């Protein structure tokens, strides 16, 4: 009886579309994993280039407890996260006010836009060569690279966000007696919030893709450096382990950004409870 009910519930859950999609995705991931185990176990793949899952796991455990080249895995990840987040924080600190100014004043926009548009499409590694020349091989050139990678995305999103604010919100609030400062606080900042957050997420994603580039010159720690260094010694288990960590950390960062957004902007979660009228 209890088992049958359990089975019925299970069947129902499998049939719900969102669960069905999850199950298919899981199957496809599992099949990929199976294929991996298969080619490594049967010797179809050279373990030098594609180690099996257990080798990756061992590399992971080893890096976690023993460390890789003087730092544990957590230290590597921590160093990288610190670089990314501090550069990104600086980029927000500069980019959001600049973006608000550029969104509210056409003149400010005309002044700054050419530079942003010009340097935005530049390959970060190309820029990095110049930064290393100017700022040296230390932390500052790394941070500058990550900062410059994050800046344009934030500025462009903020400009767009401010421009897109429904003018009715501004008029309505003025009619309730708001001064200019009250207007910025009550309308412009919260109104631009969600778009800025989206821009920040995209920008953080881009900063993330620049991480390894920032760590290939004269780093001694960092997950990107670890991958780069291990590749020189053909340690493909560490390379793959590092890539998996990078992927998971990237996803985690994005989820955290979303959660912060939800926490700061609860109304973005609100959904219509009445269809019409």
């Amino acid at each position: 009886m209890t088992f049958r009910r359990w089975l019925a519930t299970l069947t129902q859950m499998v049939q719900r579309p969102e669960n069905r999609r999850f199950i298919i995705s899981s199957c496809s991931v599992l099949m990929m994993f199976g294929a991996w185990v298969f080619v490594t176990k049967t010797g179809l793949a050279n373990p030098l280039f594609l180690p099996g899952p257990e080798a990756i796991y061992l590399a992971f455990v080893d890096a976690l407890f023993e460390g890789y080249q003087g730092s544990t895995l957590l230290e590597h990840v921590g160093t990288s996260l610190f670089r990314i987040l501090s550069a990104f924080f600086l980029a927000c600190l500069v980019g959001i006010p600049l973006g608000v100014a550029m969104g509210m004043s056409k003149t400010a926009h005309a002044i700054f836009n050419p530079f942003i548009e010009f340097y935005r499409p530049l390959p970060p590694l190309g820029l990095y060569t110049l930064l290393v020349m100017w700022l040296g091989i230390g932390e500052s050139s790394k941070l500058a690279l990550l900062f410059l990678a994050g800046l344009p995305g934030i500025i462009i999103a903020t400009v767009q966000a401010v421009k897109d604010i429904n003018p009715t919100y501004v008029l309505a609030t003025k009619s309730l007696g708001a001064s200019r400062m009250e207007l910025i606080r009550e309308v412009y900042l919260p109104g631009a919030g969600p778009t800025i957050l989206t821009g920040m997420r995209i920008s953080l994603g881009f900063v993330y893709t620049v991480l390894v580039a920032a760590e290939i010159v004269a780093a001694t720690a960092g997950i990107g450096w670890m991958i780069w260094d291990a590749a020189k010694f053909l340690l493909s288990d560490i390379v793959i382990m590092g890539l998996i960590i990078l992927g998971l950390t990237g996803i985690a960062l994005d989820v955290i950004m979303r959660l912060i957004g939800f926490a700061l902007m609860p109304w973005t979660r609100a959904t219509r409870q009445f269809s019409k009228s």
Partner: protein
Amino acid sequence: DKPETVTVGFLNLVNAQLVTKSLGLVQKEMPGVEIKYIKVGGGGDMLRAIAGDQIDFGGLGNPPAAIGVTRGLPIQGIMVLNMLDYVEALAVRTSAGIKSLKDLKGKTIAAPFGSTTHYLLLNALADEGIDPASMKIIDLRPNDIALAWSRGDIDAAWFWEPALGRVLEDDANLFNTSGLMAARGYPTWDVGVVMNEFAEKYPDYVTKFLKAECAGIDYWLNNPAETAVIIAKELGLDLDDATRMMKGTEMVPCAKQLTAQYIGTSEKDGGFVDTLVSTGNFLYEQKRLPAAASVEKMSNFIRPEYLESIVK
């Protein structure tokens, strides 16, 4: 049966391979075969070029060779490309007042990781019982070292020419060289390698290749002035620099390569095997290798028989 093309991966350093390449000696030995030369940036790239099956012949310093052999890359070592002397050296900043290795504590030292110089730096520290963690050792390529030096970001670096020459003009003096370390039992060298598949298919083309390289070495030894011109042209250097760098590199005539100090003979292993084993073990301690070096693997890797067939 002959190959359509032969691809030679050559390292960006000063040795007789540049002479062979410049004079087209390999081409002369192998008429009707297309010879391709690929410049490879360093040992790491050479390993990956081998792994990606993109070359037939290549060259490796002893650390990457130890890595490649231990990790089971399908290669064999067939000749001595060069022995490293003061073409690789530890430069220290004069104004930093470094008198001994101990003075490096707390300083920033650069070396290209995975290279012969990185190997020597760590061994030199170990010999004097200095903890590498007491200083900041960073991974920089030679040209990046020159850049970092001119900015004052680093105080010492073990690396090689031609970038070394640029640094020595700028508040720097030589503190230690690879030649000195060789005397203390840490020889460093580059070995010429061939892919197993190629060697099995075209053994006589391996000997042809060796003949050409030996002719290049002879040319180097007999015509230093002309060689300097060739080197200067190939690497885009001043003649003076080229001459200095040639002096910092020791070329071994092919006949001498089969002695105990170098690759030995098919009956008896030479010193290269010992170096490979100790390098491998060192890298294993450094956790750059998953397993300790095996004498058998290293001995199997060095194949003097091709050279023996041309040096009677």
